[in-house]
Each structure stands twice: as structure tokens, then as C-alpha cells.
């Protein structure tokens, strides 16, 4: 065999191993969602079984999936957009002026245990009558997403050669235009990564929604907790909820990955 073929085979072996390790538990979760609860913890574990869609049927009839799902999309999407709007310019400034303290300051909110914010925010939002609104949830989730986007984007902006940006400014362009026309396209992979990561983080973050959401803004994550409790633990339903919950963020990741294109930087640098 040629060296090239051996190298290719070795690559695929590594690939397969990584996939198996990461995906085996996921596969178990998805398979379990098609089993009745008692069968999920059966011993020895059964790989071959007759699947049932009872769990999903019950999920769709007992949990208002569409309404909860919509709430989750609004909250996660809104907080991601807000995070992008706030963090991308800030990341550029951090990179351009080479000052790091704003990034650390933005991160401080994420350094504290989430529980620290619960009571003060509840009191605050109750006073201004924003409990059970999307606004409160989007704002508080943006506290989570904004630092993530900020720190992710800093390294992408750092990777843009300085002379490219400076030459644009020397040509008479304003900083704003330079950012919009030159820096952002070059850092596009970063924006893709940051969007996906922050959407997923916000999607699964439950703590703030626990106290700030009400009957109209309940996110989908609440459904996940419903099947764990004394007398009501249902493994099949829990795994089904987990599977359903993972689908929207994965769909988003799949769709935006086409912008993670290799080589976008090269043309700009050579010019």
C-alpha cells in the first residue's frame, strides 16, 4: 500500500474512534427514547429490542412542545443576537487597541455562580414588572452569551493581519467601515462558531428561566426536568425529551456550518 493510502486509512481509523467515543452515549440515549421506562435500566442492557414510539406520542400530547419550543427559540435566539450586537464590536476594540481589561470585565458576570443572581434579579424584575416576559429572559441570558462571543471573537480578530486593516484606514476609510467591510468577513468563521456556541449555551441554560419565566414564557428545558422525581421518574420520556431538545441547536449548527469556509482569508491577504 502506498504511504498515502496508509495515511488515509489511519485518518479514518482515528475518525471512527473519536466518533464512537463521543457518539456511543448519544446513541444509547436515542435508542432508550424508544424503550419503555423499565427497559432502559434493564440488565443486561438490550441492544436488540422492539421499539415503541409511546414516549414521543406522550410527549407530544402532554407537553406543549410547540409553545415551549417557540419560547426557547425566542430566548436563545434573542440573547444570541443581543450578544453578537454587543460583543462583536467590543471584541474588535479589544483586539485593535490591545487592551484586555474590558474582556475580563465582561467575563466577571460569568465568573459568579448563577445562583448569586437569582434573588436580586427576581426582585428587580418584579419591581419593573418584567417577570414572565421575553425581555427579562433575553437580557439575563445575554449575560451568559455575551462573554462567550466576546472571547471567541477576540482570537479571530487577532488573526487578521494588522496591515490589512491599517491599509484600509490609510486609504481614508472610517473605522466603522473597515470593521464592517474588511474585518467581519475575514472573521466570519469566528462569528459562525460564536453564534452556534452561544445559542446552544443559552438554549440549555435553565437557572434564570427557573425564576424569571412564567406560564407564557416557559422554555423547553423545563420539560426535561419533569421526568425526574419521586414516583414519576420515567427514563424513556427523559431520553426522548433530551433527544428532542438537542435537535434544534444541532439543526442550527448544521445550517450555519457552510460559512465555516476554508480559505476565506487568503484572497484578502494577498491583495
Amino acid at each position: 500500500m502506498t504511504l498515502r493510502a496508509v495515511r488515509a486509512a489511519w485518518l479514518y481509523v482515528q475518525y471512527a474512534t473519536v466518533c464512537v467515543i463521543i457518539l456511543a452515549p448519544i446513541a444509547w440515549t436515542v435508542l432508550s427514547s424508544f424503550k419503555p421506562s423499565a427497559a432502559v435500566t434493564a440488565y443486561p442492557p438490550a441492544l436488540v429490542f422492539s421499539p415503541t414510539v409511546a414516549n414521543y406520542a406522550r410527549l407530544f400530547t402532554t407537553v406543549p412542545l410547540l409553545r415551549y419550543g417557540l419560547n426557547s427559540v425566542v430566548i436563545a435566539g434573542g440573547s444570541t443576537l443581543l450578544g453578537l450586537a454587543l460583543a462583536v464590536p467590543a471584541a474588535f476594540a479589544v483586539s485593535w487597541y490591545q487592551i484586555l481589561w474590558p474582556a475580563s470585565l465582561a467575563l466577571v458576570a460569568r465568573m459568579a455562580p448563577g445562583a448569586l443572581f437569582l434573588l436580586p434579579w427576581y426582585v428587580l424584575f418584579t419591581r419593573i414588572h418584567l417577570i414572565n416576559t421575553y425581555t427579562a429572559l433575553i437580557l439575563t441570558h445575554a449575560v451568559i452569551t455575551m462573554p462567550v462571543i466576546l472571547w471567541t471573537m477576540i482570537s479571530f480578530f487577532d488573526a487578521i493581519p494588522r496591515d490589512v486593516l491599517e491599509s484600509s484606514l490609510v486609504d481614508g476609510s472610517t473605522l466603522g467601515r473597515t470593521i464592517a467591510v474588511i474585518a467581519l468577513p475575514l472573521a466570519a468563521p469566528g462569528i459562525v462558531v460564536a453564534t452556534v456556541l452561544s445559542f446552544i449555551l443559552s438554549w440549555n441554560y435553565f437557572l434564570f428561566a427557573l425564576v424569571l419565566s412564567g406560564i407564557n414564557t416557559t422554555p423547553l428545558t423545563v420539560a426535561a426536568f419533569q421526568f425526574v422525581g419521586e414516583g414519576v421518574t420515567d427514563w424513556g420520556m427523559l431520553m426522548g425529551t433530551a433527544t428532542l431538545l438537542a435537535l434544534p441547536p444541532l439543526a442550527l449548527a448544521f445550517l450555519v456550518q457552510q460559512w465555516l469556509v476554508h480559505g476565506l482569508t487568503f484572497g484578502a491577504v494577498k491583495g
Partner: protein
Amino acid sequence: MNRNRIAVLTAAVAMIAVTATAASSAPAFDWKKYSGTTLNFLADDNPVGQLLKEHAPEFTTLTGIRVNVLLFSEQQFRQRLTTVLQAKSGDVDVFMSLVSLEGLLYRRAGWYEDLNPIVHDPSRTAPDYDFSDLGAGVVRSSIVNGQLTGIPVNIEGPVVYYRKDVLAKCGLTPPKALSQLATDAAALKKCVPDMTAFASRGLAPAVPYTFSNFMHNFGGTYLTGAGRMALSSPPTLAAISYYASLLKDYGPPGVVNYSFPQLTALFGNGQAVMSFESSNEFGKVVAAPGRAQDTGVMVLPPGPAGSVPTVIGWELAISAYAAHKDAAWYFLQWATSKQMEVTLGLEGLAPPRTSPWHAPAFVKWLNAVPVRREWADALAAIARTGSGEVGPNILLQPQARQIIGQAIDSVILGQATAQNAAASADQQIDQLIQQGK
């Protein structure tokens, strides 16, 4: 007039007279008085909460009051409840409370609306509510420092689920005495070495629920008469030794992480012979293939001090800051009414009232499957003779329970002797008692 006509007329007059008298002596209770209100009900995610959420639309039909049921699993439920109540917010009208755990704390914080004046007030309570139908002991557990903090909505306690077929195969009968549990477990370990002979809770905060039953059967208590911790007292110490050694020698590997999810899974999939766990898990246990036929249910066998099972129950409480207290009381009445408790009973929720146990529909359901009857009998015994003392009845009880659980865990893991673990825990909890003053 002929005879028949007189008879009919007399009957008619009599009926009108009776109706008129009845109407004038008892004003009809108006279920629709607060129609149009919306209530917020914060519920714990257990059979009680889930069933009440399911049946809430019936309440709306009856009264025209809308109920927003927010259902959360226990830890999340407590987080939200305490946050809302600490902020003195009217966000929650009705909530579920486990008085045995947090009664003293919440009472001290003033979070419960006292129901004493309301329950016996005929203008606010339906005439057929029959408060006296609720067991005296059950009601007593809801009274904290003179205040009726809520209405009990279920009773539960730990019971022994056991495999009749496996015991028979090994030539054993269900243990009749607490001490026999160990001998039977040893025999089972030889007879069916692949199965776990005896399983119960080992997860630190969850242990006191099952341990307390052992302690009371040994005749032990948590607190001395003077109000100090008594884990080192001989009967309690004996209970600690016994409980820990049972789990250490005959329990499942990794038992220190075990609570109801793993215990039900272990027994359900046929890996355990005996499992000492909450009666609430009954539905899940018998749902596993085969278990409905081969499982028996009994209270913990009596020890030197007899049989004193642990009994707890959730109650429905009205928040002291609630915006709609009167409408909330309607919800409580409906949820704890006789009819409602029969309905809930048919779905596996043990009612705290006495009458539902004799209701024909419920009796029929119980007799349909033998193990249901056993479960009902166990619960009846629990209700009759049970003790509500899960942890020491002090203000800082949650923390005390954790310390007790960790002490027992250290014995199970072989990290400490029972004497040392008990002494150390006594010291720590005595400090808590001082702090709580």
C-alpha cells in the same frame, strides 16, 4: 277530589315545604363566586403535583377559576419557591409544602397563611367538605406552632418491596422481625449471589427518610428530652449500626449514591430481592415487567420497640403574600375533597382522608391486583401508627439530615465506626441547634 289526587298534592306540598325550608336554612355554597380569577399554583413534580395538574381543568369547569400549574422537580421547585417567597411576591398563590422538612423554617419566616379560621368558616368552606374526615394524626402534622399551615393532600412512607418468588425459592418467608432482616439477607446472599439481597437509600440527604423507620423500630429518638442530639444513645446507635451493616454487607455496590431512581430501577429489573423505598414508587415498581405478579409489599418488620413506620405527606398551602387567597382556598377544598381523593387514589395516590379507603370504586381498584391490596394495607398501618419524625425536629433540619446521612455513609464506606460517626454528628448538630435559637 279523589284519593290519588290528594296523595299527589300532599306529596307536592310536602316537597315544596321541605325544599323551601332547606333553601332558607342553608345558603347554597357558590362554587362560581370567584369565577374569572387566575391562580398560580407552584407544584412539586411528584405524583401529587402531576395528578393535580392533570385534573386542574376540572376545577376550572367547576369554578371558572383558571389555574396556572407550574410543575418543577423537587430541587428546582424549592429554588423557585424560596426565591419568590423571600421576595414577598404575590406571584404564587398556592404551593405544595413538605412540613416534616421545612415546616418550622417556613412558619418562622411567616410564609404560610393560617387556615384555622378558614376551615371551619361555613361562609368560605363548602358544607360537604367534612374536615374531620382527615385523619387526626395527619392533620396534627400540618399544625406548626399553633398554625394550620396547609391541608394534607397525600400520605406516603417507606415500605419494603420484596420478591415473593425469590424468597420462596430460597426457602424463606418475609421477615417478621427486624433482626431477621439480616439473617434472611445473609441466606439470600448465598442462595442468589447475583442478586442484591437488601437495598435502601444511601444518598446522604435522602437517608433519614428510610433510616428513621429503623431508628423508631429500635426505640430510638433523635433528640433527648433536653433538646440535644441523641445519635449516640444506645437504641439510635444500634439502629445506625444495623442500617449501615445491612447496606454494607448485603446492599448494592455503590449504595452511597442510591436514592429512589436507582432503587426502583434495581428492583424493577429484577436485580434486588428486597428494596426499602418510598410507597410513592409503587406505580413505577409494578410497571416493570413481571413485578406486578411477584412483588409483595409490607411495612418494615417490627424491632425491639415494635413497628413505628415513618409517615410524611405533602400539603397544599396558601402563600401569606398571595393575591387571591379566597380563590386559592377554593382550589384547596376541591383538591382535598372526598371525590377528588378517590379519583387520585385510583391513580395510585394514597389519600389522607379515611372515607376514600372505603369508597367502592377505590376498594374495587385495590382488590383487582393482590399487591395493590398489600400496598394499601401497608399505607393504612403507616397512617395509623406512623411517626412524622424524619429528621430531628429543629429549625435547621435540612442541614441536620445531611449530617446524619453523611455519618451513616461513613460507616457504610468503612471510614468510621458507628460510635465515632454518631458522636461527631451529635456534636455538629448540637451546634446547629444553638445556631437556630
